[in-house]
């Protein structure tokens, strides 16, 4: 008798559980799918769906980069390479706090090896002007690995920076020569104070607040932004 009860109970239980289970799956027929149909059928552009502090590809705003090399030194795997040239001192606006920051060097080469980069943000943190930053671009699929070797300073920009650097150097030399000439003249008229002190003080006093060279650099920077290497994702 007990065996019969168990037998019937088994049938009843399996019928009941199957019915309940099927009710659960059937209820899902009335729910919308949660799939994001990346990349072409998203409700809004994919970059708008990415969180604000997402760590995508690195990018550098060269106009405010003061070439302090802090990022190059901070990088634990040495994927950043910077070369620079001295230019006339200008003031740039920091992207972090909006403060004016003096800039006396401009990079002539700024390479980031994105295929080595591990997105640790150790370069982003020390940057005094917020020039190097993460973007929301992340689509790095490419047929050629070297596409991921970002060369951020375009050849045009490099020549402009070098020209500006030359000009700045010439001006510097001219100023120095003028100073020296003045010092020589002074020495000729009066017993000389140590000439080295005058020479070292000269660049500080003769600051040249608005020389033509810095303006050129910023203009060149703005103009060559499109020519400069675009992020690989944009291709």
């Amino acid at each position, binding site marked *: 008798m007990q065996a019969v009860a168990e037998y019937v109970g*088994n*049938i009843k239980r399996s019928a009941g559980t*199957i*019915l*309940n*289970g*099927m*009710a*659960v*799956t*059937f*209820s*899902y*027929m*009335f*729910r*919308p*799918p*949660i*799939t994001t*149909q990346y990349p072409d059928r998203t409700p809004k552009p994919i970059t708008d769906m990415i969180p604000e502090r997402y760590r995508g590809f690195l990018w550098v705003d060269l106009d405010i980069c003061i070439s302090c090399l802090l990022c190059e030194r901070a990088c634990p795997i040495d994927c950043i390479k910077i070369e620079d040239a001295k230019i006339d001192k200008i003031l740039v606006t920091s992207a972090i706090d909006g403060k004016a920051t003096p800039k006396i060097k401009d990079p002539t080469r700024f390479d980031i090896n994105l295929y080595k980069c591990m997105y640790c943000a150790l370069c982003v943190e020390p940057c005094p002007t917020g020039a190097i930053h993460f973007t929301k671009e992340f689509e790095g699929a490419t047929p050629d690995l070297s596409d991921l070797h970002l060369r951020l300073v375009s050849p045009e920009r490099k020549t402009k920076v070098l020209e500006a650097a030359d000009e700045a150097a010439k001006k510097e030399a001219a100023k120095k020569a003028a100073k020296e000439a003045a010092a020589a003249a002074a020495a000729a008229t009066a017993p000389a104070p140590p000439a080295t002190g005058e020479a070292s003080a000269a660049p500080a006093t003769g600051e040249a607040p608005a020389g033509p060279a810095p303006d050129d650099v910023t203009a060149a920077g703005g103009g060559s932004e499109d020519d400069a290497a675009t992020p690989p994702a944009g291709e």
Partner: protein
Amino acid sequence: MRQFLDGLLKQWGVTNDLVTVLIYGAGMLLFATIVLLLWVAPLAGFTSYFERRIAARMQSRVGPNRVGPQGILQWIADGLKCLLKEDLIPREADAKLFKVAPYLVFFGMLGTFVVLPFSEWLVIADLDIGVFFLMAVTAFVAVGIIIAGWSSNNKWALLGGMRSAAQIVSYEIPSGLALLAVVMTAGTLSTQGIIRDQGWAPWQWNVFRTPFLFTAFFVYFISALAEINRAPFDLPEAESELVAGYNTEYSGMRFALFFLAEWADCYVISAVATMAFLGGWQIPPIVPEAARPLVQVLAFVAKSFFLIFVVIWIRWTLPRIRVDQMMELCWKYLVPIGFVNLLGTAAWVAFVPPNQALANATSIALCVLAAAVVLYFMARVRYNLRATSAEVSLNPFV
């Protein structure tokens, strides 16, 4: 079909027996080709698309929706892909058997279409032994699967083939017993005869006719699921244990043939269940005479597709059962219940006069019971929707 050919022969004045046979053969071949090209292949393809979309929806996914509008042409793309793939035969395999196996499986599926009706007039051959033919020709599937498993020379394939053989042989018995109950009630083995014996209204269907046939429907459905190796009885191709079972070594179009057969088998078992239990192509008499052939086909296919939906739905609900559970279900539950059903049906046919008070009251009571189960089910669905406070979306397109 036969009458059409007879008329043609009379018109041409052909009396020679040999020529008659040849023309019959050619005509049948033509009709079979039409059925194969225009019905079975698209049907299996569409069922695969249907299944993938439903499975996706039940898992909160989207499913194939890129090829054609809403992905409706996905199956053509899949078929083309399989055609273009390399037809690989393992070096150690028994090449001849390996090549023959998919055709046997396919033939076992296609043979059933000989007796599966679509409407009162549309059936390839209304054999007097229809149901018997159906059971016999399905056995080719088991042979094909065992040959596929054996000739692959792969232990997983062999295990899958053996499991499949054990399963099909076991479950032939309860499904045969369930169909036998129907045959006893209808008094004929002919598929058209069984459908003519039923009516258009649910209470005239075999499934609601007697309590025994009501049980027989479930016995048949469960054992048919096991016979075509569908989940939860997909032990022969249990991917977590046997890679892909008997079709592990197959590739290209041979592999596609196995899958074509699997999905067409879904239709076959649904159509047989429709034929035997759900009133087949019977439609209300108010349908005008001219529209009847079309409406009958629609009614039959609609009922079959509802059952295909249930088959798919079960697949995505229940987990796979163990081998011992599968055997236990068959031999301890379905077979004894099948025999009790058979005896009960015999007694019912012998002692309860049809279309009298008792028979009608039983039909109505069973219909009410089924309606109650459906209502309870709907309540559970509503409860599940409420329980997760999910957003309700009735739009089937994504």
